[in-house]
């Protein structure tokens, strides 16, 4: 090789190395301003790179999406199963909360009674369409006997009509065969409350006095005179008053306090006479 060329190359190499070292040294620390060349490179590069990056991300996301369809399907099925399980668990929890509230109310009611009361759960309703009765899960082995009153936190439920050692049939207050001695809290008029028997779920209150004073909104409670239901338990609210046949008697339609369609826990007043509210 020509010595001049070789010498020139050596000089260029040394100068380049020195220049590079200087540049690296000068730019190794934070700088307030970039050089014009750097600014120009960045100004050109930045929008191009941004566009390329956007397109690449778009492509990447689509490729990922397509590649993950199979995985998404199985994941979706798994998540659905988990969701179903979670919803079932949630329903159970809500149910438990509702049951807890009802039992708490029942417990408070039990505590407010003088006599012994036996808590029971409605096992099933009468399978037919004609009788308004339910069967509870406790019977004579728990001290329950025919004729005992059955209540819950809202009011009068009915009375026991038959028992087995571990179950009892409760004739609901809305059955037309049931008669409950009641009293209007406002006028103190005595009434006999019976089931309307027309499928409306209402009760009919028939006053015993000669000049009854019943009005819409009156509250009817048990009078304690019939021998079955202790005094002071709510029966229902008068929602309408009308003249009976021939215009000589008065009838009041009473909406029961108890929701018989959603009856689940009840209290059987084992000591009927002692079952008055305190």
């Amino acid at each position, binding site marked *: 090789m020509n010595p001049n060329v070789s010498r020139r190359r050596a000089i260029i*190499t040394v100068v*380049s*190395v020195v*220049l*590079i*070292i200087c*540049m*690296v*040294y*000068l*730019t*190794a*620390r934070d*700088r307030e301003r*970039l050089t014009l*060349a*750097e600014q120009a*490179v*960045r100004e*050109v*590069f930045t929008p*191009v*790179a*941004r566009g*390329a*990056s956007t397109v*690449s*991300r778009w*492509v*990447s996301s689509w490729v990922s999406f397509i590649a993950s369809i199979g995985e998404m399907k199985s994941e979706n099925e798994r998540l659905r199963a988990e969701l179903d399980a979670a919803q079932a668990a949630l329903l159970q929890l809500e149910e438990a909360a509702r049951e807890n509230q009802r039992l708490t109310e029942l417990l408070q009611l039990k505590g407010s009674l003088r006599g012994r009361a036996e808590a029971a759960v409605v096992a099933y309703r009468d399978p037919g369409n004609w009788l308004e009765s339910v069967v509870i899960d406790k019977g004579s082995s728990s001290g329950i006997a025919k004729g005992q009153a059955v209540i819950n936190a809202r009011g009068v439920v009915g009375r026991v009509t038959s028992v087995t050692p571990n179950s009892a049939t409760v004739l609901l207050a809305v059955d037309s065969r049931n008669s409950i001695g009641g009293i209007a809290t406002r006028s103190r008029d005595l009434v006999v409350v019976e089931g309307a028997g027309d499928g409306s779920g209402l009760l009919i209150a028939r006053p015993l006095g000669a000049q009854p004073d019943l009005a819409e909104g009156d509250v009817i409670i048990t009078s304690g005179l019939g021998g079955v239901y202790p005094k002071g338990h709510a029966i229902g609210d008068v929602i309408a008053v009308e003249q009976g046949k021939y215009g000589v008697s008065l009838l009041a339609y009473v909406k029961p306090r108890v929701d018989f369609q959603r009856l689940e826990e009840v209290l059987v007043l084992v000591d009927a006479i002692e079952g008055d509210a305190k």
Partner: protein
Amino acid sequence: MKRLRICLGILVALVFQAAVVPALFPRWIVPDVVFCASAVAAITGGAAVGVLVALVGGLMQDALTGAFIGANAGADMAVAAAIGMIQPELFKESLLTPAAVIGLGSIARELVYIFVIWSFGAAVDMGRALFVVLPWVTVMNCVTGVLIYRWYYLVPRARLEAGRAGGGAGGGGDAAGAGRARGAGR
């Protein structure tokens, strides 16, 4: 015109390196496309071409970084010069040649770069650098470099030879590629 094409090629390489690969493969180690281009240029065209590409590409890369200006350029240039020195002895018709040269060159280039920035105060996790980044960059650079080499050198050369074998009738099918191949073969 040729310089403009080199600059545009380097810009494309930088866009690929800085924007496309990180967006397509977010957690991957990014190949050093500029280094691969300068290495391929050095293998096919000799030290002068390789160093020129390394200088321009490295400086542009440094300009984008904004720190340690010249570190990339210097490391790329040193390796391109070294490749250029052994270039006449290389067997250029096999893909194993660029793979081996670029692999070894990548290791050397990264070591030089790490040494330079470490010397000027940058904190470098040597364990990660040597045992994670360096092996992966080497592999990625090998793959990228081989692809560039094939596209830039082997394919045009094969077309040129196919054209010659065809009596020159189809030889003008890829004039640019043939020109590149002729230039590279010098």
